[in-house]
């Protein structure tokens, strides 16, 4: 029981770290067509995330891999029932990944425009679809006892799903804008800070509506009613979001970015805690729910994997933080070339 509970929250933590890290580069990519007026702007935006995006994306692979290892049936049913949205995310990520490398290879406007578009699509689509997918998971997915999915992609676009997509998109845009505010200077910097404030203004009502809608569309609050102490997590997500505005006004962008990171992590945990112990709820009948207790791997595999994760995830966080430190501060002129 304890092992499975630990794994349930580790599973949530890995998704949260993925959203926090890749989230800001998805945000930068989404803002790319809006803010990238000149070639220098674009170069600055790409180079601000250049050393990080690839390492950030591995959190997705790890979150997926850990789902596979610790909860094989969840992995199987989740990935096969979300077949189309996951493949759309995959294609988007593929185009984005090569775009960063290919774009600078040929000095030609048309060529660059193709890859500019891929950077945008490759950031916008995953940001939106991860939100849609997770909101639908909170709500429940129509699959039966055999793990067979009875729905289609349009059913994922229900109002609550769309709201979740919008929430993720805006969160990542704000997170990306905070990052850019920290990394850039001059005209681009002025425009990005102004935009961050506007995104914040839209995000706050969307977040409030999402919290309210969750009471109607999901059973997430059941756990909070049972254990009111967990309301603290919701409080953290609300307060950290409000603080972003405060730090933006004071031009303390690193702190603003840390606050939006905290918002993303606590928002993810809002859902994870609400789901517990269900990982993948069925909309058809609660007896089909896939839970941490019924559908985990064997105690041996869970123990081995716990050892691996406890040793290596801190190591990974250590060298990734070293990378962030190595490339900290505003982009210098020299870093603009690559």
């Amino acid at each position, binding site marked *: 029981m304890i092992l499975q509970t630990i794994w349930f929250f580790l599973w949530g933590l890995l998704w949260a770290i993925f959203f926090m890290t890749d989230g800001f580069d998805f945000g930068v990519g989404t803002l790319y067509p809006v803010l990238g007026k000149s070639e220098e702007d674009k170069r600055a935006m790409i180079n601000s995330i250049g050393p990080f995006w*690839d390492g950030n994306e591995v959190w997705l692979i790890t979150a997926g891999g850990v789902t596979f290892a610790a909860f094989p049936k969840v992995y199987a049913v989740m990935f096969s029932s979300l077949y189309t949205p996951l493949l759309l995310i995959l294609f988007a990520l593929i185009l984005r990944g090569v775009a960063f490398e290919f774009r600078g290879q040929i000095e030609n406007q048309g060529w660059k425009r193709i890859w500019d578009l891929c950077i945008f699509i490759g950031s916008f689509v995953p940001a939106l679809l991860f939100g849609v997918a997770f909101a639908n998971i909170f709500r429940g997915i129509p699959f039966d006892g055999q793990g067979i999915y009875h729905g289609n992609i349009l059913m994922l676009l229900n109002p609550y799903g769309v709201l979740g997509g919008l929430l993720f998109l805006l969160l990542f845009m704000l997170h990306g804008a905070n990052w850019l505010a920290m990394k850039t200077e001059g005209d681009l910097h002025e425009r990005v800070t102004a935009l961050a404030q506007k995104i914040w203004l839209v995000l706050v009502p969307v977040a409030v509506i999402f919290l309210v809608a969750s009471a109607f569309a999901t059973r997430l609050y059941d756990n909070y009613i049972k254990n009111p102490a967990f309301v603290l997590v919701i409080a953290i997500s609300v307060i950290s979001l409000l603080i972003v505005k405060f730090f933006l006004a004071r031009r303390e962008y690193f702190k603003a970015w840390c606050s939006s990171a905290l918002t993303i992590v606590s928002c993810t945990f809002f859902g994870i805690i609400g789901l517990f112990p269900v990982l993948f709820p069925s909309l058809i009948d609660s007896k089909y729910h896939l839970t941490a207790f019924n559908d985990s791997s064997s105690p041996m595999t869970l123990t081995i994997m716990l050892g691996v994760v406890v040793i*290596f995830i801190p190591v990974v966080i250590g060298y*990734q933080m070293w990378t962030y430190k190595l490339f900290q501060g505003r982009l210098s002129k020299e870093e603009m070339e690559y």
Partner: protein
Amino acid sequence: MDPVFLSRLQFAVATMFHFLFVPLTLGLSIIIAWMETQYARTGDKVYLQMTKFWGKLFLINFAVGVVTGITLEFQFGTNWSRYSEYVGDVFGSLLAIEASVAFFLESTFIGIWIFGWKKLSAKAHAGVMWLVAIAGNFSAVWILTANGFMQHPVGYTIRNGRAEMSNFFEVLFNKFGLLEIAHVLPSACLLAAFFVMGISAWHLLKKQHIDFFHRSFKIALVFGLVASLLTGFTGDLHGTHVAEVQPAKLAAMEAHWETKSSAPIIMFAIPDEDSGKNLIEIGSIPGLLSFLGFHDFNATVRGINDFPADERPPVLITFAAFRIMVGLGTLFIILMVYGWFRREKLMESPLFLKIMLFSIPLPYIAIEMGWVVAEVGRQPWIVYGLMKTSEAVSPIAGYQVMISLIAFIVIYGLLGGVGYYLIAKNAVKGPLPVKIHVKN
């Protein structure tokens, strides 16, 4: 529209395309790390130039390889959910370990290598490339261990209606997986060496940047010679093990239909699966198959007809792929040994240079054929002896897979086209002048 067949096709497209890029990443990262180390040690600018020139080609190739890798992890869940459910306890953990101990390291440090030229000392920067090279190859070790489990499952027990891990060390030190590692990693080095030699040969034939490419060629030649011999040696060991644990695959590799002692090797044949025999056989060497498989000229080798009809792999594909792989492998050893004796007289050996130029695609073909032997030869099993491929597919509609398969072919086709165009463009351009970087 049969989801099993379409999912197999999609997996084949995704895997074979991914594996066009991975071996070069694995091998070339080591060669570049070696070059950059020479620069850090000696300060010789040509080594820096080499690092930058081959590094540029490396990065284009790396980009396509890394993005197409995500597909593979996703596909087990999207298309093979029954398989994932059944063996996830063992197989899933290997993939998760791969991501946390190896792939993270590779992906984080490649970013540092690209953007960190002015942030790090020459030695530290070379060290970063070594980390990328080691992490990439270590990543492959985990993936091959996972594949080893599919080929020859060990260290598990059937409990709760699925395969659960019973001995982690047996899974890790599965002989089949170890042999795959010992065979695939040198073959990746071989491919990278041929890539470097082929491009060098092009410039040497044009008599440009002679010092640069002569030295590059010789570095790659050392790698290529060692790798070609190792690949051949471990391939032989691997074959013996296949004979022991996957007799049906061995029979298909050799188009060996009837069980008999002193089984022959047939050099060329046209196997016919309907009639259960070869339509044409040319050049039969008696007893050789018995000897190669079991180190005994009189050993009995089981024939395909001895296996139940629903447990036979496709013979023609397995047989042909195996012949192409072994034929090319032999050619590589001959070329490398010849090259070794001509290494100081490359400029006087235009024919050899021309052969090396046109040989660039050959290791790609050989390595893909190797996977065809391993994977098609394992059919109809997804996990040998444990689960059939037909039972492993997700409960998804055929049309879904059809659409995604078409999308894969279109997107991958474009990526491959653009990727190789850019590699060729930069390869032809030749090395650019470099200035020595100083750490800020």
